[in-house]
C-alpha cells in the first residue's frame, strides 16, 4: 500500500461523504416538494429555482442560530448525542456499493466507502447505534418530553430491528443460491453482483415468459422486502412510526431541547438515514447498481457512471414512497406500533424465513427421502 492507495481511500471516503451531504440537501427539499404536491400546496419556491436552495438557507440559518443549553441537562451526553446520531448515519452509507468500480491509476477502485465482508452486520450495528443518540438525547435533556421520546425510541428500535434482521437473513440465504455462488455472503458488493443478469434458466418452463426479468431479490423475496421496508420506516422514525418525535404529543420528542446546529445534526441524521435505508433496500432487493450500461455503445465515462445513476434512481423511487407514506398515513397509536412489530412483523418474518429456507433447501439438495 503506497501513497496512491492511501489517496484513493481518502478520495473515496470524502467523495461518498460529499455525495451524501448533497443528496441530503436534495432530499429535504424533495420531501417538502412532494408532500406539498400531495397537499395542493407549492412548497418552497423562493430560494433558488423552485426553492432548491431552501435546505442550504435553512442550514445556514440553523448554523448561525443561538444554541440554547437548558440548565438541567446532563452536559456530556447532551453534547455527545448529536454526533452519535450523525456518525452512524454516515457510516451506514459508507457500506452501500454505488457501482461496480472504476479503474484509476491502474488500480481497481470500488465505488463504495468501504467494502466490509460483514457489511450487513455492520449496517445493523450502526442503525442500533443511532438509537443510542435518540435515547441519550432524550435522557440528557432533563425534560419530560424528550425523555418520553427517548423511551419510545428504545422500545421501537428493539421491536423493529428484529424483524429487519430476519428479513435480511432471508435475503442473505437466498443470495447464496445465486449461480456461481459458493456460500452466503454479508458483503453488500457481493450481494449486488449476485443479482446481475436475468432469471433465464432459473424459472423452469416459465423461462420464455419470465426469463427477461432481471435477477433481483425482490421477486422471490417480496415478503422480505415488505417487512424490510416497513421496518426501515420504523427504524428511521418516520411517519407513521414517528412516535419518537410526535410533534402533537411530545412537542419535538427527543430533540425538543436542541436548537441551532445541534438540532440540525439530528435533522441531517434523519434524512441521511432515510436515504441510506432506501439505498440499502435497493441494494438488497432491487439489484443495486445493476442495470443496462450499453458498454461499447456509449462513451466509456457514461457507461462508468450509469450504474451509479441506476442505484440513485432505484433509491429515489423508494425515497418518494417514504414521502408518500408520510403524506398519507396517520401516526400509529403506541400499542398499535407494538402490536404491528411483535405480533405481525416478527412472526411473519419468521414464517417467511422458514418457508424460504425450506424452498431453498429443496432446490439445492432435492426432496428429502427422494434418493
Amino acid at each position, binding site marked *: 500500500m503506497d501513497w496512491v492507495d492511501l489517496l484513493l481511500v481518502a478520495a473515496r471516503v470524502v467523495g461518498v461523504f460529499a455525495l451524501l451531504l448533497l443528496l441530503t440537501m436534495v432530499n429535504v427539499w424533495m420531501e417538502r416538494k*412532494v408532500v*406539498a*404536491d*400531495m*397537499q*395542493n*400546496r*407549492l412548497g418552497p*419556491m423562493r430560494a433558488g429555482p423552485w426553492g432548491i436552495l431552501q435546505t442550504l438557507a435553512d442550514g445556514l440559518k440553523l448554523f448561525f442560530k443561538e444554541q440554547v443549553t437548558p440548565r438541567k441537562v446532563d452536559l456530556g451526553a447532551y453534547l455527545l448525542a448529536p454526533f452519535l446520531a450523525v456518525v452512524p448515519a454516515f457510516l451506514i452509507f459508507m457500506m452501500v456499493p454505488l457501482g461496480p468500480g472504476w479503474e484509476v491509476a491502474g488500480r481497481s477502485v470500488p465505488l463504495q466507502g468501504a467494502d466490509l465482508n460483514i457489511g450487513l452486520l455492520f449496517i445493523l450495528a450502526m442503525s442500533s447505534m443511532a438509537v443510542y443518540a435518540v435515547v441519550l438525547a432524550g435522557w440528557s435533556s432533563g425534560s419530560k418530553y424528550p425523555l418520553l421520546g427517548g423511551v419510545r425510541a428504545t422500545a421501537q428500535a428493539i421491536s423493529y430491528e428484529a424483524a429487519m434482521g430476519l428479513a435480511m437473513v432471508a435475503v442473505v440465504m437466498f443470495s447464496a443460491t445465486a449461480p456461481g455462488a459458493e456460500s452466503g455472503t454479508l458483503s453488500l458488493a457481493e450481494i449486488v453482483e449476485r443479482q446481475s443478469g436475468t432469471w433465464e434458466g432459473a424459472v423452469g418452463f416459465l423461462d420464455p415468459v419470465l426469463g427477461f426479468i432481471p435477477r433481483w431479490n425482490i421477486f422471490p423475496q417480496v415478503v422480505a422486502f415488505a417487512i424490510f421496508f416497513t421496518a426501515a420506516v420504523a427504524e428511521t422514525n418516520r411517519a407513521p412510526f414517528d412516535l419518537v418525535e410526535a410533534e402533537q404529543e411530545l412537542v419535538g420528542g427527543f430533540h425538543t431541547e436542541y436548537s441551532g446546529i445541534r438540532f440540525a445534526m439530528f435533522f441531517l441524521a434523519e434524512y441521511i438515514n432515510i436515504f441510506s435505508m432506501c439505498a440499502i433496500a435497493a441494494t438488497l432487493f432491487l439489484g443495486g447498481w445493476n442495470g443496462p450500461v450499453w458498454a461499447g455503445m456509449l462513451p466509456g465515462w457514461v457507461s462508468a457512471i450509469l450504474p451509479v445513476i441506476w442505484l440513485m434512481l432505484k433509491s429515489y423511487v423508494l425515497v418518494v414512497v417514504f414521502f*408518500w407514506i408520510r*403524506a*398519507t*398515513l396517520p401516526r400509529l397509536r403506541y400499542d398499535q406500533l407494538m402490536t404491528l412489530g411483535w405480533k405481525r412483523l416478527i412472526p411473519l418474518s419468521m414464517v417467511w424465513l422458514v418457508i424460504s429456507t425450506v424452498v431453498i433447501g429443496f432446490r439445492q439438495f432435492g426432496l428429502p427421502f427422494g434418493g
Partner: protein
Amino acid sequence: MGMLKDFWKGFKVTGSIGLRGLFGKDIVTTRYPSEMREKPTRFHGRHVLNRYPDGMEKCIGCELCAGACPARCIYVRGADNPPDDPQSPGERFGYVYEINMLRCIFCGLCVEACPTEAITMTHLFEMSVGDRRDAIHTKDELLMAEDGSVPHIYREDPFADLSELDAADGWLRATSPSGVAAYEGETMWQSTPGPASWEPEPDQETRDAPDG
C-alpha cells in the same frame, strides 16, 4: 386485509393529488407578495375618512363611531367649524380622529354607525408598522386628500400597495330607517371611496307606502 384496502384508498388519494400537483394543477397556494388573491368586494380593510365631492370633510365629529366601537379603539374629539374656514358642511367637524389599529377588530360597526358615511373601509390589509406608536392612525393618515386619494402611513415604502386603498369596502347600508332588509335591485354599496354613488334613501313613509 381490510386495513390494507384502507391504506390503498389513502395512497390513491395522495398519489393522484400529488401527480396533479407535480404538473401544477389544483395548487391553492397564492405566492403572496407577488401575487394577490382577489378580495371580496365588502372586504373590511383599513379605514378611510371620506370627503364630499366639493372637498368638505364628511366627518361631523359626532363620536357615534367611537361609541359603537366594541374594541374601544376610536378616539374622536369634535370641534366647532371655524366660520371663516369650515372643514365640514355641518356645525362641527372631527378635530381629532385616531384609530388604534392594534386594537381594531375590523368589525365595521363604526361604518354602520356613521350618520354621514364619513368613515368607510378600504381593501388595505397590510398594516404592519415599525413602531408600536405608528399603529395609532391619526387623522392625517386616515383622511383622504382633496383629489380623493387615500394616504398610507408608509407611502414611500416600495412594498406598499396603494391600489388597495382605492378599493373601498363596498359598505352595505345594513340599517335603514324603514327597517326593511330586502333591497332587491338597488345598489346598496359603493366600490370606491368617496361620496355615496346612490340616491338618497327615501324617508320611511314614502318607502313603506302600500302602493309604493
